[in-house]
C-alpha cells in the first residue's frame, strides 16, 4: 500500500495557544483511519491542519509525496482533499441541488457532475426528494447526508470527516457509518474519520489514533484498540 498522507511532528497554534504537539500520523491509500479523543484534544485542529485552514507552525504535512504545509484550502480541494466539517456547515439558503453544485465547484465536466449527483441521490435517496428545498430546512441527519454528498461531489481521494455522528439519532448514525464504509469500499476513497463516538468509529476503521491534550498517545489497529484496557476505560465506558 502506498502512503497518501503523512504528518511529521506537526505543531499548530491558535494565536499564541498551542493546540497540537508533535503530531506524527500517516494514512495509506484505501484505509479508514479513526482519530478519537475527548473534547478539546485537538482532533478538529488536526483535520484543519491537513486541509490548510490552520497552517502548521512547524513540522510537515505530506500528501501524495508533496509537501502541502503551506498550501491554501481551495488548492487542496483541487488536489483531492475534501472535508465534511464539524457541524456540517450546509449553505442554509442554497437548495440541496445548489449545495451539491457547490461541492463540484472546481469541476467543469457537466456530464460527470450530473452523473455524480445521481450517484449521490442513489446513496442518499432522501436528498433526491428534497432536491429543491433549502439546505437550512433539512433535519440534522439529512444535513449530514448532504454534507457528505457535497464532499463526494468533488471526487475526493482523501475524505476528512469531522464528527459525522454529532447530535444525530443512533439509527441515523448507523446509516451514515454504513455509507462511509460503502464509499470507502466502492469508490476506493481514503477516509480520515474524527469521532467522539469511539465505539462505532473503531468498528469501521482499519487503524486508529488516540489523542489527549494535543498529543497522540496511542496508535494501533482498531481491533486492538477496541480491546485495549486503557481505551475501554477512557472512551468506551466499559
Amino acid at each position: 500500500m502506498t502512503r497518501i498522507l503523512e504528518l511529521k511532528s506537526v505543531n499548530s497554534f491558535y494565536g499564541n495557544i498551542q493546540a497540537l504537539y508533535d503530531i506524527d500520523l500517516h494514512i495509506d491509500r484505501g484505509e479508514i483511519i479513526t482519530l478519537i479523543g475527548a473534547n478539546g484534544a485537538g482532533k478538529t485542529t488536526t483535520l484543519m491542519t491537513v486541509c490548510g485552514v490552520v497552517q502548521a507552525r512547524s513540522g510537515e504535512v505530506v500528501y501524495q509525496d508533496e509537501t502541502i504545509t503551506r498550501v491554501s484550502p481551495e488548492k487542496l480541494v483541487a488536489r483531492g482533499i475534501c472535508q465534511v466539517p464539524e457541524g456540517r456547515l450546509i449553505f442554509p439558503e442554497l437548495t440541496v441541488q445548489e449545495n451539491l453544485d457547490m461541492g463540484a465547484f472546481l469541476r467543469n465536466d457537466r456530464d460527470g457532475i450530473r452523473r455524480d449527483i445521481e450517484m449521490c441521490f442513489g446513496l442518499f435517496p432522501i436528498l433526491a426528494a428534497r432536491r429543491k428545498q433549502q439546505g437550512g430546512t433539512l433535519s440534522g441527519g439529512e444535513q449530514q447526508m448532504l454534507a457528505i454528498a457535497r464532499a463526494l461531489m468533488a471526487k475526493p481521494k482523501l475524505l476528512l470527516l469531522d464528527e459525522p455522528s454529532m447530535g444525530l439519532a443512533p439509527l441515523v448514525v448507523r446509516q451514515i457509518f454504513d455509507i462511509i464504509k460503502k464509499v470507502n469500499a466502492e469508490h476506493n476513497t481514503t477516509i480520515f474519520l474524527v469521532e467522539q463516538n469511539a465505539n462505532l468509529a473503531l468498528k469501521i476503521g482499519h487503524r486508529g489514533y488516540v489523542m489527549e491534550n494535543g498529543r497522540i498517545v496511542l496508535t494501533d489497529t482498531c481491533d486492538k484498540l477496541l480491546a485495549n484496557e486503557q481505551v475501554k476505560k477512557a472512551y468506551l465506558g466499559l
Partner: protein
Amino acid sequence: MDYFLELFFGGLTRGSIYALIALGYTMVYGIIELINFAHGEIYMIGAFTGLIVAGVLTALGFPEASILVIALICAVIWSASYGYTVEKIGYKPLRGAQRLSPLISAIGMSIFLQNYVMLAQTPDFLPFPALTPQFDFMKPYSAVMNSSELVIVVATIAVCVGLTLFIKYTKLGKAMRATAQNRKMAMLVGVNVDMVISATFVIGSSLAAVGGVLIASHIGQINYFIGFIAGIKAFTAAVLGGIGSIPGAMLGALVLGLTEAFATGYVSSDYEDVFAFCLLVLILIFRPAGIMGKEKTQKV
C-alpha cells in the same frame, strides 16, 4: 393627479439612484459584514470620471448618444478599479481583525478619497453636461416625467434584473452566495474567497459608477462632497430593506425615494431628510432586521 404622478416618477428616479448605490453596500455587507463607508466616494469618483470623459469626447466632437455610453463604460472601469484597490489596501490586511478596525479604515478611506478629489479637482461645484438624449416620444408626458428620468429608471431596472440573474445562475454568483452564507465552508469546497470578495467590490463599485454618471447628468452639477450625502441615503436604504439582502436594498431604495419625493412635494422640501430618517427609525423599531432582512438566530 399630474402633480402626484410627477412626484411619483421623481421618487422613482431618486429610488433608482439609491438602489444602484445601496446594492454595493448590501453586497459587501453580506459577504464580509463591513459597512464600506468609502462606497459613496466610489460613486462620486464615477461621476467625476464621467464628467472628464464627456468633456474630452465633446471637445473631440463625438455624437451625443455615444458620449453617454462611453462615459458610462469609462466610469464603470475606473470606479471598479478604485473599489478593488480600496479593498486590497484598506480592508484585506484587516481581515480577521476585530470588527471595529476595518470600519475605521473605511471611514479613513472615505475621508482620504474626498480630500484627494477636492485637491485634484476643485472644491467648487462643477457643471455637468446633460448626457441623456431627449426623446421625442416623451414630449407629451414632459409634465410628469422627462427623458433623463426615464433613462435612469430603465437603466436601474435593467441592472437589477441582470444582477439578480447573475447571482442566481452563474458560477461566480453561486460562489458569492455560498461565501456570504458560510465563508469557511466556501473555502472548503474550493472557492477562492479573496477572489469572490474582490469581485463583490468590483460589481458594487460598477453599479455605483452607473448611478453617479446618470444622476450627475440629471442634476447638472457635481463636487467632491456628493458621495457623502448619497452614500448616507443609500446606506439608509440598504438598512431599511435589510442589510445583506439584495432584493431588500432595491425595495428599501424605492421606499426611501418615494417617501422623500412625497414628503418634499406635499409637506416641504425642508423636511425631506426628516421624513427619510423617521422612516428608518420606525422600521428599525418595528422590524429591526429591515423589511426583507432575516433575524439572525445563533445556534449554540
